[in-house]
């Protein structure tokens, strides 16, 4: 007993052996991960249940004489007649600051091969902040994606849905946003629900290679996990986010994706013999997502001033955003970013349909610099889309229409961004300043698109103080605007932008 303090000696000496008494139930039915238990009264919804075999389940159905328990792990050790007991605790996730950089499952077990111990246990299901504890969203969350930051701006504490068909770049937008939070004091959570393990591994590798794991952690429930784990995953991720929000931090949570979450909940509900509703989803499928997304909030200063920004992802079929689950989540969130397959296949990536995408928080969450340069972009694009219909028929167009189409093409070209290539605020401001001042009008569209990286490098090298001032303050004055314009003009003239246009015109005339 050398080294054990007096305190611990006292613990041992004062310990008294008492019988452990608890109520138990008996398994009367097991099927597809759902266990029916008789005789275990006094349980609460969401309580953890322990089986004799060591398996764990969660109470999801309470009836007069029996309870329905969903197994958290795919476990074939549970059989008829097995004894079960209640744990007295609802599902919780262990949390600590050390979770950052880690990959865990919805109940906090590490999946990255290293031990993890959370000191604080937070229930997976928690009530959303009340009205009085909240404040308006007023701080921007920069995604680094120019199409989003300029026309569908997101604020800290907002819920912005990313919706689109499969393989349209939904996860890419979310992951690029996470990567762009480096050095901005935002902790990020990526919650993978029902995804293939290989897909999740790729995302984690991308986050690691870009250094994003220094401010991110991942909660994973892959496609091979039980429906109960897939159901729990976003709630656990949100609880983990709330752990940091309660400390006054700004947190970004990505739920990828809630369509699979709804399917997992539908599976559980059907196995629990609940009445199916529209598309066989249970009647409370709206509440499934509303109670999750309402936990994203911007807290008042009195409550710490932290925030949770939610980026739920929903997958549509054939572009149908009028389906059941997409419309549910659209009505819950504060806007949506709609990604279109047609745009994606035409090379417009990110494939943001600016006509159907909206941010209900809007310009309240935009930095001053972006507000000044992005005012007319939506109208310009809307007019371009209308006029481009005529251009397809090969009709003779007047010079004003040609100019409008040309500007629309250039603006669309400006919004094309490579996967992982996020822009800073100053870079986005510079690109859009050039557009709004008409500096690209004499430059061919393809040439402009090729030269964007070089132009941005030129600006960073030659007017670095202006660029860093815009990044620091989020705004610019008339003098800085003039410096930006002059630098862009200088670059274009040095790189023969206008000459290229004349050459192209000569070729066309021939």
């Amino acid at each position, binding site marked *: 007993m050398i080294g054990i303090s007096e305190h611990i000696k006292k613990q*041992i000496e004062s310990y008294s052996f008492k019988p*452990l008494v608890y109520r138990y139930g008996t398994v009367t039915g097991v099927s597809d991960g759902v266990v029916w238990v008789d005789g275990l009264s006094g349980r609460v919804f969401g309580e953890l249940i322990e089986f004799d075999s060591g398996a764990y389940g969660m109470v999801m159905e309470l009836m007069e004489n029996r309870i329905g328990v969903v197994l958290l792990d795919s476990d074939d050790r549970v059989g008829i007649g097995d*004894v079960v007991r209640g744990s007295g605790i609802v599902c919780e996730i262990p949390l600590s600051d050390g979770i950052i950089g880690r990959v865990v499952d919805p109940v906090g077990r590490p999946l990255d091969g290293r031990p993890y111990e959370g000191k604080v246990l937070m229930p997976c299901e928690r009530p959303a902040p009340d009205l009085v504890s909240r404040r308006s969203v007023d701080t921007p969350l920069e995604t680094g994606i120019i199409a989003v930051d300029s026309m569908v701006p997101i604020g800290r504490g907002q819920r912005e849905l990313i919706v689109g068909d499969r393989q349209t770049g939904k996860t890419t937008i979310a992951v690029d946003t996470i990567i762009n939070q480096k050095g901005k004091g935002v902790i990020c959570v990526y919650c993978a629900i029902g995804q293939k393990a290989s897909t999740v591994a790729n995302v984690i590798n991308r986050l690691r290679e870009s250094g994003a794991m220094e401010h991110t952690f991942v909660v994973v429930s892959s496609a091979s996990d039980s429906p109960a784990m897939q159901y729990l995953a976003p709630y656990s991720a949100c609880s983990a986010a709330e752990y940091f929000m309660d400390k006054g931090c700004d947190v970004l949570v990505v739920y990828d994706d809630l369509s699979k979450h709804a399917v997992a909940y539908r599976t559980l509900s059907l196995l629990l013999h609940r009445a199916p509703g529209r598309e066989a989803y249970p009647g409370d499928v709206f509440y499934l997502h509303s109670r999750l997304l309402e936990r994203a909030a911007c807290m008042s200063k009195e409550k710490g001033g932290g925030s949770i920004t939610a980026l739920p992802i929903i997958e549509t079929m054939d572009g149908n955003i009028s389906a059941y689950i997409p419309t549910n989540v659209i009505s819950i969130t504060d806007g949506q970013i709609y990604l279109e397959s047609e745009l994606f296949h035409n090379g417009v990536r990110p494939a943001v349909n600016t006509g159907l995408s909206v941010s209900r928080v809007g310009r309240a969450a935009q930095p001053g610099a972006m507000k000044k340069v992005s005012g007319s972009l939506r109208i310009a694009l809307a007019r371009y889309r209308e006029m481009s219909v005529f251009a397809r028929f090969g009709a003779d167009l007047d010079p004003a229409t040609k100019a409008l189409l040309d500007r629309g093409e250039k603006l669309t070209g400006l919004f094309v961004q490579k996967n992982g290539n996020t822009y800073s605020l100053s870079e986005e401001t510079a690109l859009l300043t050039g557009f709004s001042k008409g500096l690209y009008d004499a430059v061919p569209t393809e040439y402009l698109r090729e030269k964007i990286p070089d132009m941005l490098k030129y600006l960073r090298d030659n007017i670095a103080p202006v660029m860093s001032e815009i990044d620091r303050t989020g705004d610019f004055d008339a003098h800085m605007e003039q410096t930006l314009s002059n630098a862009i003009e200088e670059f274009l003239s040095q790189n023969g932008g206008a000459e290229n246009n004349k050459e192209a015109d000569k070729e066309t005339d021939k």
Partner: protein
Amino acid sequence: MAFMDAIAAVGGSCEKDVILTTSPRLSADAVKTLIKMTSEKFGVENIVHRTDDGMIGGFTLRCGGVFYDMSVATQLSCLRESLDAAFEEEER
């Protein structure tokens, strides 16, 4: 005698079968005595006796939806939890 006291200390009543589980190391006589005491305590004739090596010692009783755990394994586990809590408090 400690077992007999423990049986006597168990409260509640039973309407169905009682399952008494002991360590296989317990002697046959001790098991008989336990069964007799349990039968008298709960007024139940049909007592099912099982053994479980994982218990180390002591016994468990299952009856009427209530589980009474007097196994040494569980008591050691509770003691470990209590010590863990004490260690954590020491570290703080």
